[in-house]
């Protein structure tokens, strides 16, 4: 196992992690500010990917596709916040889970109704295709490097927004004490709508960016949603910093687990059995990580007890 190989895998883990962060950031913001469990967050990811694929097919421009993904998912987020989510803020988590699960079914069947059952085509832009050679002779896909850059830039922007702007102050205050900021005259309806649309837009952006290297199809959001929940549980629910660290931990654990565990078992077992056992254990690795974090810090790494 060479150094170059390991560096490439660490980059893969980072890239996976920052994309997970885009998903988890919205989820954790919405939970932190509004106390809402939004299972339909994966559908917003799917909406971003579908909007991007449709726009790219019509115009041929990847930038327009990204803009369309942001707009469509933010709009969808705003609409469901107004129509559905708003009724749920005072209800218990079970009602929220039921209603947002219903939204998953509605969005999935709606997407099938509009776009059909077959996967859509979305390619990476010409300028970012192909591999690039990094120092030490590491060959790495240019697009994945761009994903790492975009993910880090969005994370930095989000930290700035939360720590240094008026809206950020309101968001942090909303996390600390929902009723009090209402009493202080902050328009809580507008704040909720804004946070929800922002979270939705981040999910849509992730969907569009990832859609270019994966399959744009109905149901693509749910596997990512599960990982995003793991991320926010590890990071501490409501904490953006926790979501960032949690996402990187999950990304690196998953990628390196997949690569290193089968090799490790290869020392003990024959290749076919080692591949199978190692792969099985690797798919559990992030859940073992989550369990470990929960035992040591039940509130998550950056959660407030």
């Amino acid at each position: 196992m060479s150094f170059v190989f390991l560096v490439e895998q660490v980059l893969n883990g980072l890239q996976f992690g920052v994309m997970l962060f885009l998903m988890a950031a919205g989820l954790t913001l919405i939970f932190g500010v509004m106390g809402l469990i939004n299972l339909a967050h994966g559908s917003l990811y799917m909406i971003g990917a579908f909007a991007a694929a449709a726009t790219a097919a019509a115009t041929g421009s990847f930038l327009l596709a990204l803009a369309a993904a942001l707009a469509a998912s933010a709009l969808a987020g705003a609409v469901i916040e107004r129509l559905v989510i708003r009724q749920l803020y005072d209800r218990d988590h079970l009602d929220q889970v039921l209603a947002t699960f219903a939204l998953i079914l509605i969005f999935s069947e709606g997407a099938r109704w509009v776009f059909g059952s077959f996967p859509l085509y979305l390619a990476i832009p010409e300028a970012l295709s192909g591999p690039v050679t990094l120092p030490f002779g590491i060959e790495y896909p240019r697009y994945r490097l761009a994903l790492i850059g975009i993910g880090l830039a969005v994370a930095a922007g989000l930290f700035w927004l939360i720590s240094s702007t008026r809206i950020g102050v309101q968001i942090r205050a909303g996390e600390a004490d929902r009723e009090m900021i209402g009493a202080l005259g902050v328009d809580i309806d507008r704040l909720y709508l804004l946070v929800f649309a922002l979270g939705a837009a981040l999910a849509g952006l992730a969907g569009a960016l990832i859609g270019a290297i994966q399959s744009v199809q109905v149901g693509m959001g749910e596997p990512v949603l599960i990982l995003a929940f793991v991320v926010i549980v590890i990071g501490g629910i409501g904490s953006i910093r926790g979501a960032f660290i949690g996402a990187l931990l999950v990304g690196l654990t998953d990628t390196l687990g997949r690569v290193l565990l089968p090799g490790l078992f290869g020392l003990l077992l024959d290749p076919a059995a080692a591949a199978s056992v190692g792969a099985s254990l690797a798919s559990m690795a992030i859940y073992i990580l989550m369990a470990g974090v929960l035992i040591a810090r039940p509130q998550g790494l950056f959660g407030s007890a």
Partner: protein
Amino acid sequence: MKHILLAAALAATAGMAQAEVKVGMITTLSGGGAGLGIDVRDGFMLAVKQAGRDDIEVLIEDDQRKPDIAVQLADEMIQAEDVDVLTGIIWSNLAMAVVPAAVAQGKFYLSPNAGPSALAGKGCHPNYFNVAWQNDNLHEAAGAYANSAGYANSFILAPNYPAGQDALTGYKRFYESDLAGEVYTKLGQTDYAAEIAQIRASDADSVFFFLPGGMGISFLKQYADSGVDLPLIGPAFSFDQGILQAVGDAALGVVNTSQWNKDIDTPANAEFVESFQAEYGRLPSLYASQGFDTANLLMSAMDKADVADADAFRAALTDADFTSTRGDFAFGPNRHPVQDIYVREVIKEGDVYTNRILDVAIEDHADAYAAECPQ
């Protein structure tokens, strides 16, 4: 539960003496993988429509790719609807949940897709007919092709579930040289950067992969962009008509194995491809051809025997006296196909990505489990 009733028996007047055959089709019409079920259904219904028969009634239900729902639907169809024949299931795990119980209750089951080894060997049943392939077949053909292409060091990967393990076993059964690596991925995995890096770091000269549906789309797109340019081989499941359009240029030139392709040069196949396109406005996939063949097999048996006479109907099905879209078609002793498996290559025709046949990978190929099937 929505209940789609598609009765071909439009003009069935009361008192007609003709035997009615009631078919229960359980297939995947929603969720991920719905494209396969829709193709099987459309192929099947096209054959029924073309035959213009009024003695066949087809009930179609969506299993949502969930074994528990498939079992529930099968119970309903057998007990409440009293169907004679069941068909439609796409996935092996669903077939394993439904088929043994259905055939044990005296129903016929015609599989238009799934062919798990457990139903081909010791668990075979006189009322279970597979019209598609035994699961290992296309992978075995890929192994045979790798030998003839002179590959000496294959890197192989598949998802970590029974059909994935069967795939690698099938490939290794025919492939004669060394393995550069053997990797199991997570079922439903969408990112293959780590695996592609392993391929890059190995000294492989070829890559065999079995990643059906969306997994294959993701893998092909990422592989094409990675700069690794070793030749790929796979079974047709990552290269069907529904998937190729979503993969685009990344699939061009990739070699894959299939028991069917639209350019198999027989009149029946040409007519099938043309009429499918006219009816549904898209090219048929191998799944559509399997649905079409399943319906034609069923109707050929209905011409020879009454479904109420199980022994005669079974014999009529075993004869397989119908014109398959694949050309020659016969059942082996375990009622699985004995057929040619082809090597295809992905090409672009105008704006549409599709396959063309390069060669025959294995002629008259039967499965490895037939001998275990008690006669």
